[in-house]
């Protein structure tokens, strides 16, 4: 060994280079959650991000600043009709790079983003995804586009339980069941169910193929 030092340095350098390349090429997910599942449950139960249709009427009517309306339906439905001032962003594309940038910009400018689909359900999933990623300024229109275009929006002409409160029981479940004469229906009849696994056996397909 004439130059032990040089050899040694080359060794260490290649070693470090290999490790650095390994770290750089690690597959980091580009989108990450800012909230744990437990935090998400609490947020979901608060129901704070729901926009009442009659409130949206005012926002649209007076073009209140600080709001952006996002239409999550398909471009086809959007062209057929949409709420005044809404921007189309189909559900499939909400996590595209450009749209994520847009959400970041909205968050920075503290603009409230109100999303709607054809019903509340269509906007619920996207809202939950973005919420879990930490975008707090996103809200959901109750009742969706369908209610906004058909249902009563006048606050003086509103039934006691408006149709957009979909999670309210529409009937007196207990009363109906009692009236129809059922004795045991309540959740109490929770017999310990033994779950039996039935192996499904594939049937043989015997197609007789003729031959010579």
């Amino acid at each position: 060994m004439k130059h032990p030092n040089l050899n040694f340095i080359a060794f260490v350098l290649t070693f470090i280079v290999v490790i650095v390349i390994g770290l750089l090429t690690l597959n980091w997910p580009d989108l990450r959650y800012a909230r744990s599942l437990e935090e998400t449950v609490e947020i979901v139960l608060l129901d704070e991000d729901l926009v009442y249709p009659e409130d949206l009427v005012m926002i649209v009517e007076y073009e209140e600043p600080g709001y952006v309306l996002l239409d999550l339906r398909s471009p086809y439905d959007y062209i057929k009709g949409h709420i005044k001032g809404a921007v189309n962003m189909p559900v499939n594309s909400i996590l595209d790079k450009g749209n994520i940038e847009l959400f970041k910009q909205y968050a920075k400018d503290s603009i409230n983003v109100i999303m709607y689909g054809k019903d509340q359900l269509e906007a619920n999933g996207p809202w939950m995804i973005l919420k879990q990623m930490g975008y707090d300024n996103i809200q959901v229109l109750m009742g969706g586009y369908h209610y906004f275009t058909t249902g009563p929006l006048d606050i003086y002409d509103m039934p006691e339980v408006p149709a957009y409160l979909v999670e309210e029981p529409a009937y007196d479940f207990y009363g109906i069941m009692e009236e129809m004469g059922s004795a045991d229906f309540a959740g109490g009849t929770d017999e310990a169910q033994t779950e039996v696994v039935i192996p499904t056996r594939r049937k043989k397909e015997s197609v007789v193929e003729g031959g010579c």
Partner: protein
Amino acid sequence: MNKAYIVLIFLLILAGIGLLVLPERDHPEEATPRELLSDLRNPSRFISTDRVAEMLIDKDPTLVLVDVRDMYDYLDFSLPGAHSIPLEEILLYYWVDSLSFEKSKVVLFSNSDIRAEQAWMLLQRQNHKNIHVMKGGLNQWFETIIRPTAPPETASDDEIDLYQFRKGASVYFTGGTAAIEQEIEGEAVTVTRRKKTQVVEGGC
């Protein structure tokens, strides 16, 4: 022994210690947001009230019904055999066994389908694969199964069949005393034609 090797061994040990110190990823098996979105676009997670009724009547052992409403609603009324797992408890560890049972078909429901879908999203992030949502929830259940509305007389045979099934299911679920008020009049006698079974027989 070569001096370089000793240094390399030392470096490797150092890297190993570094790995030990690195923070543990808390939920390495979680689905990414993108996976969640693609799951969300798959409508097969929804299961109709008719299908649930059918499975209940057939006493399908693989069906696991989960009521995600709170305890009071559950005690007031719930589907037969349903388990009560309120949304705030859905992540608690002791449900995991019954939810991740591979052969079972877990069906979440609430009064409508919003709460049930929220629970579904949470479980989806935990990578459960066999979870479904009852479309329309209990409101839809009462509308279609308990109090089905008769189709117009011009309805197709399929619709009339469906209505007959719902009537039967209604009687089944309410204890068999519900009176059947009106039969559909002039029910068309349909001629069912046997389909020809085409077995291709090879020849020469």
